[in-house]
């Protein structure tokens, strides 16, 4: 290739791709350090160093956006930077939870960490993708590490089963995506989002609608939106808890970050339909969670409900298309999604982190009944879980409340008021099971046969404390963290 073209292609790409480069360098270093016995000692430092560096360069994108690079297929703007911070935070939480989590798999932690650093690369590519090809690369870069990580506890049937289930269904989702992208390309001759948005009339044809529907279906699959949610509880339950946390927070955030990018290509008439899917997803997720006794399944179902709320935001952004407040609503949709996924990352990540921590005292801590009366023996853990549950339920002074406010406000501004009301009512059901956790923690006596959990895991404790601080900060002083991006 002509070097001049190359120069042009990669002009300014350094700053734009810096978070990805950090991650790539870090995961290589982890793999190398894993090979040489003498370097084993530096391994634990490499992952936080990599994530920190990536976060620093992602933060730089917020104040100083690098713009579109790689021939316009990757947009490194403030939004990509902000979402990247959320992904990196999810990955960092998952990593902190994974320390001392594995027992017989401990010798393979090098591979584990390398895979853990690959997934956020895919997420960042998804968030900044400006065409379907780059998005597809991101999707695969995200999914393949997660297939492996889900099955990481290879001696356990449930883990292998989770990995296989996720893989088979994931392959199915990918096929849907490729089919949809192919149809859209045949129709419009373009794979770029801009090209798709420009060819809106063509997209209204049956072929275009089918293409978009297939595309959305694959994204719904990744995000766990009904009716593509059935894998979620099984996979979360079987996968190692830190990985379930990463899937719940990171993957969902990445799918919605790309959905936001896709909004201009969707016809405004689809808004109400999407809103209906959103409300149905919220209802299914919340009703599904109501009867769960396994905490991981419970948070999986609640994750489905949260995906529904996030989809309501997207529906609002789509429905506002063509109106004179289109831009205002779409900007609001971005703020809402960002705040929501950030709050969700710390609440769900924090809650699953506590589950992972307590699992060190025995796997029965996956069951809610083991958490009964924990407030009397481990008040710190119980208080953290309470805070995370209340944040997931959207009670004020937590990030979850503000996320809910912003999410519903996007829908209301796009005049989807009845859907917003229905959605709000399904979150009453949600409080039904979040309160059950709180009831068990504080209001029931400790079972006679349950010893007080004793495992001390400083890093997990630090991660939980940090999550709790972030949940409160997002709820009380959102301006401090997101002032530049919101509004």
């Amino acid at each position: 290739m002509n070097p001049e073209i190359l120069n042009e292609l990669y002009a300014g790409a350094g700053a734009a791709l810096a978070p990805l480069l950090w991650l790539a360098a870090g995961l290589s270093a982890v793999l190398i350090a894993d090979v040489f016995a003498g370097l084993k000692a530096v391994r634990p430092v490499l992952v936080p160093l990599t994530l920190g560096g990536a976060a620093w360069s992602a933060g730089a994108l917020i104040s100083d956006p690098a713009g579109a690079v790689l021939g316009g297929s990757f947009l490194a703007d403030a939004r990509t930077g902000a979402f990247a911070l959320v992904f990196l935070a999810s990955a960092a939480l998952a990593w902190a939870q994974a320390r001392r989590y594995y027992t017989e798999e401990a010798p393979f932690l090098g591979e584990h960490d390398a895979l853990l650093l690959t997934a956020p690369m895919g997420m960042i590519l998804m968030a900044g993708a400006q065409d379907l090809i780059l998005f597809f690369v991101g999707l695969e870069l995200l999914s393949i590490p997660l297939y492996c990580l889900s099955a990481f506890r290879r001696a356990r049937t449930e883990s292998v089963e989770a990995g296989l289930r996720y893989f088979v269904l994931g392959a199915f989702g990918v096929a849907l995506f490729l089919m949809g992208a192919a149809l859209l390309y045949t129709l419009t001759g373009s794979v770029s989002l801009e090209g798709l948005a420009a060819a809106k009339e063509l997209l209204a044809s049956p072929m275009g609608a089918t293409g978009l529907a297939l595309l959305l279906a694959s994204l719904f699959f990744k995000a766990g939106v009904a009716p593509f949610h059935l894998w979620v509880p099984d996979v979360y339950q079987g996968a190692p808890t830190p990985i379930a946390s990463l899937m719940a927070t990171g993957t969902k955030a990445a799918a919605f970050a790309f959905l936001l990018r896709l909004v201009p290509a969707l016809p405004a008439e689809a808004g109400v339909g999407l809103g209906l899917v959103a409300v149905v997803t919220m209802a299914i997720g919340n009703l599904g969670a109501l009867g769960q006794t396994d905490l991981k399944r419970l948070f999986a179902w609640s994750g489905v409900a949260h995906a529904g709320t996030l989809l309501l935001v997207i529906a609002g952004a789509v429905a506002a298309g063509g109106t004179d407040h289109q831009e205002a609503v779409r900007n609001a949709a971005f703020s809402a999604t960002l705040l929501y996924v950030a709050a969700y990352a710390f609440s769900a990540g924090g809650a699953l982190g506590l589950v992972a921590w307590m699992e060190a005292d025995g796997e029965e801590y996956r069951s809610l009944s083991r958490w009964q009366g924990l407030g009397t023996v481990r008040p710190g853990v119980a208080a953290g879980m309470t805070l995370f549950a209340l944040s997931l339920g959207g009670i004020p002074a937590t990030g979850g409340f503000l996320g809910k406010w912003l999410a519903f406000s996007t829908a209301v501004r796009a005049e989807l008021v009845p859907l917003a009301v229905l959605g709000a009512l399904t979150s009453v059901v949600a409080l039904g099971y979040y309160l059950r956790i709180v009831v068990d923690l504080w209001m029931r006596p400790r079972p006679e046969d349950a010893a007080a959990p004793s495992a001390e895991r400083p890093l997990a404790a630090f991660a939980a404390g940090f999550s709790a601080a972030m949940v409160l900060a997002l709820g009380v002083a959102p301006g401090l963290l997101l002032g530049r991006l919101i509004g």
Partner: protein
Amino acid sequence: MPLLTLITFVPLLGAVLLALAPLKDDRALRLGALGVTLVNAVLGLLVWQGFDPAEAGLQLVESTPWFELPGAIAVNYSLGVDGISILMVALTAFLMPVVALSASGHVKQRVREFVVWLLVMETGMMGVFLASDLVLFYFFWEISLVPLYFMLGIWGGSRRLYATVKFFLYTLAGSLVMLVAAIALTYQAGTTDLARLTEWAGMQDLTMQGWLFAAFALAFAIKVPVLPFHTWLPDAHTEAPTSGSVILAGVLLKMGTYGLLRFGIAMFPMAAVEAAPLFMVLGAVGIVYGAFLAMAQTDVKRLVACSSVSHLGYVVLGMFALTTAGLRGSVLQMVNHGLSTGLLFLLIGMIYERRHSRELDAYGGIAKVMPTFAFFFVFSVLSSVGLPGLNGFVGEWMILLGSFEASPTLAAIAVTGVIFGAVYLLRATRLMLFGPVTHEENERLPDLDAREIGLLAPLCLLCVVMGVMPGPFVERTAPALDRVEARIQSAREQLELAATLHDAPAVAGEERTR
């Protein structure tokens, strides 16, 4: 001095300090909580002193930017007090030390958690009454659910888990509908400042006002509770520990009536005028129905809880009469109900601590054994039924007067409630206090001790003061309520004008066809 910020956040600060304090002794924790609430009571007194009775608008205003919502809507941390909220703020500040002091009788376990939640509760309640920004109000409104949820769930009676979850979900269902309405209101008006929202809302047509009113009113009606939504209240009251019941009856329910007044009537006057007949009927039916419920109870705590439904019916009735006397009476009655029902719950708690039963049958002839208790009980009952010279009389009388102007029929129905009220409360008094001592174990019940008398006496004193000279209380609310009334008056005129305009073309059309 940022007085309102202090009165709101001193309890929270106290809660944090007590949560972390290296105190092993329960007594020290209790004293700490009492100290914090007393400091807040002093702050309450300063607010009361600093409040100018002649001024109708918000006073002692504090405002700083908080954050910005998408769409460049600035949310402010802004607090203020006016005639609608001053009595509630004062009542909260006054009741909390009493509650803190009463807790040592019935909270023996997990004292640290209890005092923390108690103080967090005070922050939540103050915030609700003082917030003059919609987002801030909603923030405190929902947050104030949490402490009571814990107080009920941890220190409550045997069916507490059922009652707590029911209480939480009922209130939350209403709140979330209000959330959507609050969002719609915010974006339609482009502000979250309550004064500007009120101004904006007053200029909207009936359809817009109607929808928003309906959503807000639903949330508050559940909280009050207005009749069809009342079923959570007897459960919550019965299962709550004494201090929880006192807070619930004294302040939390008033958040509902306060909301109806500030957000329902003052904000959407046209819709309120249209909805007034419905609410008056619900209020009047609530009075009678609550009274019948109370009559059928054998558990004395449940009896008082049902009487709350009845008494709050008066508040709703008077408020939606939309007359001078009705509005003033209902605001006054909010305080009165807090005092007299608070007293009753405290007394029931005290006898329960001695006898561990709340069944009316378990007592009888207590007046002989516990004369001081009997004195306070009779006093509270008389205050509750509205004996002239005590606080309840003034409020009830004004409400009945006000609602008579609006609807003589409903006022007549409400008056029967006064009689029924006397029936069930006096019956309970007779069964518990008088006659022979029927149970042997009641013969050695110790009478009230100094602590108990000390916490009842201030409430009783206030009952007398409010009964004998209600002037200082009424005059502080009057200017703000007069302003509400003026808004209602102009809304009525607008509605009449709209009605004539609506009829006019029809008449013209008829003439043309002729």
